[in-house]
């Protein structure tokens, strides 16, 4: 048979349950703006009944756990989307920042300056005797070289800054993987692995951050630990409570670009260019593939143009007033490292490109004449030099086979490539951003804290608490009355 004392216990359990539930609500409200926080609910259940005779009496309620509302699959999808978005965004920003080197308003810009150089040759063909026209050719040649070099400089700097980013991001990756591994250990060490909701939420937040740095694949093991590998599967970053350190070392064989490795046990796995997603993957892609692609194209254009102009000048003859022997062929107009073998050809050519100092000293060395020993008015070779703007070709893939032209058309197609790349990466970034936002909304609709709901729950638990307190107060009154009755009986 139940008694007043046990009823007091029931009232107390009601108070405790309401208090616990209110504290969970407080925790939810406090984390309303915490990223990746999953809303928690107190899990309540009825206490086991006690039996008097053949009657079962309830003994109140208890809190059996605190459960978080989360969709693991959705979380991992979101990590992927964020990773793709940050990768595309970084690629877009990298390409977009070099796009300015390719803008051309018709007076400045690579295409315009190439036109300007050939235009000056065309003017020289009109007046081959004129020393000012010769000087103008050299001036335009220098302007064109400057334009090539400044565009190349922009690309080189962007690649260098991508390389710097690689170095610093590797440090961040290590910080994150260590923290995730520590949380893994914490989560699995619980009596009930996976019960530590806040550690799980924190780990998800760190995993999202890691995904934005490097493309990753995440899987969960039976102990509720995250196993994290690179998106290419090249190396493992986190296995259970162990984080494998990533390191970046300058590669002396490759202009001191950072080589990225992951130390897996005794094995150092080279993961350079083995990461697709995230900003680190994007920066390596920019540094090793995207920007060098543009740089090679620029080198091909400059190298082809300079070598073809040189060949034409060497085929022509000097005017009679040049200090050199009149019947002589012209010298090379441009100097530079014309290594036309190996791949890529004309590597770093633009940095070495200059006007032949002999020609700068004596502009009469521009071979305008087409016939040996002809008069100063012979402009046949000047016309051929100027006509290279139509007949000149560029080895567009750098293998000595595929030539297209003219130069300005190749410049335009390179510009088109840069613009299209920027447009593509921007489109991918936008799409992934949309996807990530949609997933975040979905995730938040599962896990997010809704203050209205919390207010309603708070109200109901507040009332439950008040009712339980009222119940205890009633039991107390009953006890008092009983006591009073007992004392009255004794005195009478």
């Amino acid at each position, binding site marked *: 048979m139940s008694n007043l004392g046990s009823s007091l216990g029931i009232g107390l359990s009601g108070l405790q349950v309401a208090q616990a539930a209110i504290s969970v609500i407080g925790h939810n409200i406090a984390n309303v703006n915490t990223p990746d926080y999953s809303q928690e609910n107190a899990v309540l259940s009825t206490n086991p009944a006690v039996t008097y005779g053949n009657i079962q009496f309830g003994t109140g309620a208890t809190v059996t756990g605190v459960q978080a509302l989360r969709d693991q699959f959705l979380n991992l999808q979101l990590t992927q989307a964020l990773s793709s978005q940050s990768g595309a965004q970084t690629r877009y920003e990298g390409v977009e920042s070099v796009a300015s080197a390719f803008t051309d308003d018709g007076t400045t810009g690579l295409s315009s300056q190439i036109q300007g150089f050939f235009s000056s040759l065309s003017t020289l*063909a009109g007046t081959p005797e004129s020393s000012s026209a010769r000087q103008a050719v050299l001036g335009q040649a220098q302007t064109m070289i400057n334009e090539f070099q400044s565009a190349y400089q922009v690309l080189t700097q962007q690649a260098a800054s991508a390389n710097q980013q690689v170095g610093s991001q590797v440090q961040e990756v290590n910080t994150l993987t260590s923290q995730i591994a520590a949380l893994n250990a914490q989560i699995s060490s619980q009596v009930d692995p996976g019960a530590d909701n806040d550690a799980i939420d924190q780990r998800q937040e760190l995993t999202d951050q890691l995904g934005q740095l490097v493309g990753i694949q995440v899987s969960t093991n039976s102990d509720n630990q995250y196993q994290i590998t690179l998106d290419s599967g090249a190396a493992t970053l986190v296995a259970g409570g162990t984080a494998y350190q990533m390191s970046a070392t300058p590669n002396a064989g490759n202009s001191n670009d950072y080589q990225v490795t992951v130390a897996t046990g005794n094995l150092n796995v080279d993961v350079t260019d083995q990461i697709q997603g995230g900003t680190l993957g994007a920066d390596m892609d920019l540094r090793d593939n995207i920007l060098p692609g543009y740089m090679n194209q620029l080198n091909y254009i400059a190298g082809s143009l300079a070598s073809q102009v040189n060949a034409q000048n060497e085929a022509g003859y000097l005017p009679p007033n040049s200090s050199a022997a009149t019947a002589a062929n012209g010298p090379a107009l441009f100097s530079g490292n014309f290594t036309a073998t190996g791949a890529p050809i004309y590597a770093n050519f633009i940095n070495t490109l200059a006007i032949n100092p002999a020609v700068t000293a004596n502009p009469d060395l521009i071979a305008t004449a087409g016939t040996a020993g002809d*008069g100063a008015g012979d402009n046949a070779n000047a016309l051929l030099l100027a006509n290279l703007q139509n007949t000149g070709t560029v080895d567009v893939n750098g293998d000595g086979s595929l030539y297209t032209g003219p130069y300005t058309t190749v410049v335009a197609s390179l*510009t*088109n490539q840069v613009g299209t790349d920027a447009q593509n990466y921007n489109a991918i970034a936008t799409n992934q951003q949309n996807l990530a936002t949609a997933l975040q909304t979905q995730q938040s609709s599962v896990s997010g804290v*809704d203050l209205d709901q919390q207010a309603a729950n708070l109200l109901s638990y507040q009332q439950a608490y008040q009712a339980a307190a009222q119940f205890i107060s009633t039991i107390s009154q009953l006890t008092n009355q009983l006591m009073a009755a007992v004392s009255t009986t004794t005195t009478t």
Partner: protein
Amino acid sequence: MTMRVPNLLNNAQAQLDLQRIKQSFAQTVQQVSSGQAIVDIADDPSGNTQVLGYQADISQNGQYISQANTANAYLTSTSTLLTTMGNDLNSLTQLAQEGLGSGATTSSQDAIATQVDALRSDLISLGNTQEQGRYIFAGTNTTQQPFDPTTGAYSGNDGSISLAVSQTATVATNVPGDTLFFGGAGGEGGDGDLLTQAANLATALQANDTAGIQTAYNNLQAISDRVNTIVADVGSRQNGIQAVQSGLTAFNNTLTTQESSIASVDYPTAITQLNQESVAEQATLSVMSKANQKTLFDYLG
């Protein structure tokens, strides 16, 4: 079923949209302020490529137009000089006729010979004319005086100078002195040599050598025919150049129009877009400020 709308991210989509509206707004402002439709090559890569193509074509046509101008300038001076030369030749043949005339006396023939000599000197100095510092009748040997002022000996060559007036067409801008004065290489001192024939005429007049005068007269007539042919040739070259020039100028106008249709901003469209984006931004801001102002907590307690 209803979807839960928790507090953390209920503005995320609106924020994203707002950012995009602002980005697009900034881009349109830049288009309007710069007048350029393509502010960033990533906006329209293929349009940008077309613009570059048009710019290259326009610049190259500009080169051809300027070459044609240069060629035309040379040919115009040549043409003027050829007219003077034709007049001189007419005078020479008239003087020869006077020398052959029945009323000619020794003294009058001496006077005629003096005039012939003067005309010959004129012709030599005409052959040594410079245009923009170059001797135009020297073949390609344009920096040296082609005719000896006294003997008339030719030190130029028979080189022809051409300029490109289109990708495929070239035009000769000069008449080599030997072609004009001697009828081509090797003609110097022969029957076709204008200066020699003029000198012969003067000598024959002074010697009262009727047969000599007659020969010189006949030769000068032939030379006159040759010069007329050259005049016609130069004239036709000039006509050709003018046709090419006007063709190229018209073509460049078309190209410029096409380039500008891609490269220049279309103000009515851009400003309409600007207005739309401005309205969208304000509407989004206003909605965002009204949404989720209240929670249930505001009404409790």
